[in-house]
């Protein structure tokens, strides 16, 4: 009986609590014309401690300085943001300001869910960010035109995080941003460091597509070609080069640790600290975890990515966009312009250990210090170019359903490069066909 009473009481309390605390329209419901402050929801995907703190600090500063435009900071998650947005766009309740990455914007722009910002961008913000970064957020509007559907503010490049003691012991030339290793030098260095149970390099290939396709631009590999308005998959000599070289490190030179193959980006770090391998090619953001976790006395350095016929890499930007249904797009744009000014971008980049697109932010002394490899990371930004595959309608499906399994099989040595190339093209073209009808 006591249980029944307790449950009944709990039910009443729960319902009352649920009803009582459930109120509140997080959306932008009031306008300055009614005398109430305009309310803007800002969906942020910041997740690292310093980055969240920087985001909150900038929002607080904005709110204090702009009592008529109040921004609500809402923290989202990278893993689910697109599922969340699809529903909220369809329901017309998406946040006013949306943090995402540039590959996700293309589809949303074509579907008409994002506001074209090209006529709204303040001149100062526009000129502070180079055109190569704006290219990552310029997409078709689904009606034959082109629009700018986000403001790019953080970028990731591929670098090599290396064990300094092993590097010194191998007596290899230390590459610099001005004079990076060629892929041949990189492979030779990896071979030289492979001894006594230590491998020269570890390729974490759980998600192989972004890493390999971005590096493929070193040899001009674009993976897609467009002729007569039709886009098809292309895996020619340029595209095969990086794939083959990584495969050779694994199975010909045996200088790459096979244990890392199925691992995610950060998974090989414990073995790296233990000296199981000397070099870890990874995105610049991984430096944060190394700086935080590396055991005392462990010396590590950041090396620039290798160079093929060029040092170019594919650029993916983190972006801020405005929802098409936002009731306050002008106020949202004002907030974005403030949020992404040079000084604030430097804070955000430091918090996320990524590269700012703002030229003013990139000149910040904190972005060019040697500490934790910031100088090398920031210098790598000059090699970033818009990756052609990110503009292909259907790329996401090709990446998930075709490229990821095929590349995993190839790197696991289960299929040859010819078989991999054939499947990437044949199965890929079937996917793309659906998007081009």
């Amino acid at each position: 009986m006591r249980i029944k009473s307790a449950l009944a009481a709990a039910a009443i309390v729960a319902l009352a609590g649920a009803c009582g605390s459930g109120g509140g329209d997080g959306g932008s419901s009031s306008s300055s014309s009614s005398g109430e402050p305009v309310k803007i929801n800002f969906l942020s995907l910041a997740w690292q401690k310093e980055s969240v703190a920087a985001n909150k600090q900038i929002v607080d500063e904005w709110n204090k300085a702009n009592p008529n435009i109040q921004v609500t900071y809402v923290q989202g998650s990278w893993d689910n943001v697109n599922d969340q947005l699809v529903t909220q766009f369809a329901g017309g309740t998406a946040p006013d300001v949306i943090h995402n990455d540039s590959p996700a914007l293309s589809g949303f722009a074509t579907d008409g869910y994002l506001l074209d910002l090209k006529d709204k961008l303040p001149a100062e913000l526009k000129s502070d960010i180079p055109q190569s970064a704006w290219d990552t957020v310029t997409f078709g509007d689904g009606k034959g035109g082109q629009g700018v559907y986000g403001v790019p503010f953080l970028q990731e490049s591929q670098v090599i995080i290396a064990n300094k003691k092993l590097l010194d012991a191998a007596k290899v030339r230390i590459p610099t941003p001005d004079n990076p290793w060629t892929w041949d030098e990189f492979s030779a260095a990896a071979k030289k460091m492979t001894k006594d149970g230590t491998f020269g390099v570890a390729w974490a290939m759980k998600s192989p597509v972004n890493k390999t396709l971005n590096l493929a631009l070193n040899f001009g590999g674009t993976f897609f070609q467009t002729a007569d308005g039709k886009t098809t998959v292309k895996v020619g000599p340029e595209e095969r080069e990086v794939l083959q070289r990584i495969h050779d490190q694994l199975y010909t030179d045996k200088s790459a640790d096979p244990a890392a193959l199925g691992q995610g980006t950060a998974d090989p770090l414990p073995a790296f600290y233990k000296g199981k391998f000397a070099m870890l090619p990874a995105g610049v953001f991984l430096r944060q975890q190394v700086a935080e976790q590396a055991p005392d006395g462990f010396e590590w350095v950041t090396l620039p990515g290798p160079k093929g016929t060029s040092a170019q890499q594919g650029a993916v930007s983190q972006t801020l966009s405005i929802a098409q249904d936002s009731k306050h797009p002008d106020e949202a744009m004002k907030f974005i312009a403030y949020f992404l000014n040079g000084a604030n971008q430097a804070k955000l980049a430091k918090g996320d250990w990524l590269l700012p697109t703002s030229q003013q932010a990139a000149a910040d002394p904190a972005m060019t210090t040697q500490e934790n490899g910031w100088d090398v990371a920031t210098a790598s930004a000059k090699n970033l170019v818009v990756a052609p595959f990110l503009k292909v309608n259907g790329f996401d499906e090709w990446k998930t359903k075709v490229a990821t399994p095929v590349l995993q099989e190839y790197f696991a040595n289960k299929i040859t490069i010819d078989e991999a190339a054939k499947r990437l093209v044949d199965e890929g073209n079937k996917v793309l066909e659906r998007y081009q009808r």
Partner: protein
Amino acid sequence: MRRFPQYVALAAYVVFLAFPLLWLLSTALKTPQEMALADPTWIPREPTLANFADAFGEQDLVGAAVRSLGVALAASLITVVISLPAAYAMARYRGLVNKIAIGWVLVSQVFPFILIIIPLFMILRDLDLVNTLPGLVVVHVTFTLPFALWMLQGYVRAVPPELEEAAAVDGATRLRSIASVVAPLLAPGVVATLLFAFISSWNEFMFALVILQNPDVMTLPLTLVRFTGPEGVARLGPLAAASLMATIPSLIFFAIIQRRLKSGLMAGAVKG
């Protein structure tokens, strides 16, 4: 002594079940350096509470837990209240309508979640329930109800109809026989269904993600996911600390309710 192997097996099983909780505890107390060791340790060498401080300092975990508890209790109770009479009818009355109803309940389970989320979201928006906890309760009841109904009608079927017939012979009305004979026998089933509904709601992430935007109404799963980044990278220490704290309310709920799961098993089965 004969029972020694049984005890060993039981102890091993308990350790196996407790493994995730012990791992969470161990991780929550480790420094970032210790978490990244290639040879993981069970007992932290330099235990630290910094992960708990980070987790509670950065996120409103207590508020989120209270909201999750409210939503889960409300959703589970409403689910049971609605499904109990329907389950009785499904179990006791046979006919075409009944068969169709049972078929529909089964069919409703095979719809992919993504298929219903957008229409459901539209309905909630029109009812002004988006961004509210009552809206989330409605959604949780909606997706928990079919399976709860299925579970409960199984429990009702397990109660022999002869017991009700015997009560009728003694002059009891149908309502009286349900209340005095069937209900006590059903209690463990009701508790099991309540637990199922509670767990489903407590852990539910996707609907909450889509429906709730206002940080002041967000539930625990939405708060926990804030410690994860792209490509499966996570801030493991604060995530483990927060997850550990997140298990406490549900453990308390289980502790309160599990005795009822056992005690009602045969109550009322013997006609006095």
